[in-house]
């Protein structure tokens, strides 16, 4: 039992972003255990992107095809994983909304312990160990599991890597299952914006913006990054109805780990930090030099956001050659 199974997320017939990061985690773990990495993709027919999973770290790609996989079908995925899970040391999933939904169901179905939202997974004397933030990121817990473990790995915790190999593709059967929840579809938000949890750059606004329409300043800054930036927000402005819930970063919002997080007019309350302190680089723009956000920021500008943000937008545009 040294092999690792990765449950790869797909939506609408294409592998989701994040599969490669998950395979990096799995590859490292399998190498420590001296085992193999299998990537399981549940889809309808062939799924776009499976060709790249070998290069990303999978030794084998297992494909399970069923009409039920046109939407998220938890019972069908659980049944499929359950049919193969016995041979693995660990089952890895991405800790996305879907992965977090699926991991505990799977753990209960295969009678395995479960570690959620982990930032590192390793093997110590053959046992799977995980590291995970707890208490809203105010403490770090290390857990060790005995037997097969189900582990959901936080997006952004591992880099995506390419090994250059191609994985062999095999199909697995979808066993009989009882659908209990019927997913009818996913409505995209009115504005087709990038999700804060998936963006390379997050530009987050807080109460310092003063009025909801001033989010336009942040949208302009995000746009300057050319499609790789999303607009996030503190809870204060979400609760005030200035921006939709999905944009909220923090303890009661999303956890994000972008390469660059720009906090604009955000004070840096402990609950906000809980969602963004693992960003690679943090920039704070705040007119209060004592704002707590400066304690976690790599770079800070003390000043009025209404002057600083447009200047920064112009500078980013210039740097990107726009």
């Amino acid at each position, binding site marked *: 039992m040294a092999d690792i199974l990765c449950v790869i997320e797909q939506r609408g017939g294409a592998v*989701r972003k994040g599969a490669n990061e998950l395979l990096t985690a799995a590859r490292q773990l399998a190498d420590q255990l001296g085992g193999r990495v299998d990537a399981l993709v549940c889809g309808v027919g062939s799924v776009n992107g499976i060709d790249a999973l070998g290069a990303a770290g999978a030794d084998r790609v297992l494909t399970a095809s069923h009409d039920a996989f046109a939407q998220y079908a*938890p019972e069908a995925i659980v049944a499929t994983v359950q049919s193969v899970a016995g041979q693995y040391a660990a089952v890895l999933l991405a800790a996305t*909304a*879907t992965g*977090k*939904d699926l991991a*505990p*169901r799977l*753990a*209960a*179905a295969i009678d*395995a*312990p479960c570690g*959620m*939202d982990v930032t590192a997974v390793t093997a110590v004397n053959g046992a799977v160990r995980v590291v995970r*933030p*707890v*208490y*809203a990121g*105010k*403490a*770090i*817990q*290390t*857990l060790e599991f005995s037997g097969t473990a189900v582990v959901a790995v936080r997006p952004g915790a591992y880099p995506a890597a390419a090994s250059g190999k191609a994985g062999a593709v095999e199909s697995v059967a979808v066993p009989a299952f009882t659908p*209990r*929840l*019927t997913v*009818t*579809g*996913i*409505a995209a*938000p009115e504005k087709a914006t990038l*999700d804060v949890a*998936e963006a390379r750059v997050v530009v987050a606004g807080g109460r310092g913006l003063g009025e909801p329409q001033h989010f336009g300043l942040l949208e302009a800054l995000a746009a300057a990054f050319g499609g790789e930036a999303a607009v996030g927000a503190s809870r204060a402005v979400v609760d005030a109805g200035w921006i939709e*819930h999905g944009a*909220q970063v923090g*303890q*009661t*919002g999303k956890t994000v780990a972008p390469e660059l997080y720009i906090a604009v007019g955000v004070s840096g309350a402990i*609950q906000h930090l809980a969602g963004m*302190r693992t960003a*690679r*680089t*943090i*920039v704070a723009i705040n007119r209060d030099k004592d704002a707590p956000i400066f*304690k976690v920021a*790599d*770079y*800070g*500008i*003390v*000043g009025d956001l209404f*002057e*600083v943000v*447009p200047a*920064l937008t112009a*500078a*980013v545009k210039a*740097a990107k050659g726009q």
Partner: protein
Amino acid sequence: MKIAICLRRVPDTTAKIAIASNGTSIDETGVKFVPNPYDEYALEAGIALRDAAGAGETVVIAFGGDAVQETMRTALAMGVDRGVHLQGTPSADGLANARVLADHLRDGGYDLILFGKVAVDDYGQQTGAMVAELLGRPCATAITALVVEGGTAKVTREVEGGVESAHCALPAVFTCDKGLNTPRLPGLKGIMAAKKKPLDIVPTTAGDSRVTIVSLALPPERQAGRIVGEGAAAVPALMAALTTEAKVL
């Protein structure tokens, strides 16, 4: 409609965390405990559904030591009808805890079993979905809308890049996210009434744990950053830092 709401007692979110001398848990000295914030969305949803139906019962259920009874009184003060304290010591193994809850809930005749999506202490994020699986019930996690009509429930949940809609037959299990509702505050009348509401105590034991807490530690401090300057004049210095030092541009 009979609705169970499972409740956790957690440190107040603003509490400063210190590690206890055992190195695997927090030092609880001086820490204020509150109902898990996400469980409050579950409590509100349960109470509102019961009230809208004009009949039925809400039951708050908590697994833990005796201190949890104080937290359960907050739920009773919000309007929940009665409580069941599953008295015992929760395990580091979430599945062992889910079994304790599932074993109690199995024959309770509940149409709905509600949880918060996550407890803000150990961030386990697994109990609700595990209980559903153990009971063989439909389940949706982190829901932001819930409509119950007849024997079915319609829910939405936020996923990356959109809002997922789903429906299922009751009985069902849901875990609740922010956005579902605005939890009510217990009023004075509720607090008085809560004292007289029934709170049954059922001794329980969690099964063997396959999870060991190896350590609990404070996170590494982020390296102190620097203020690159003041006002718009500081933008070139920031751009230089982002390009050459941080290499994120």
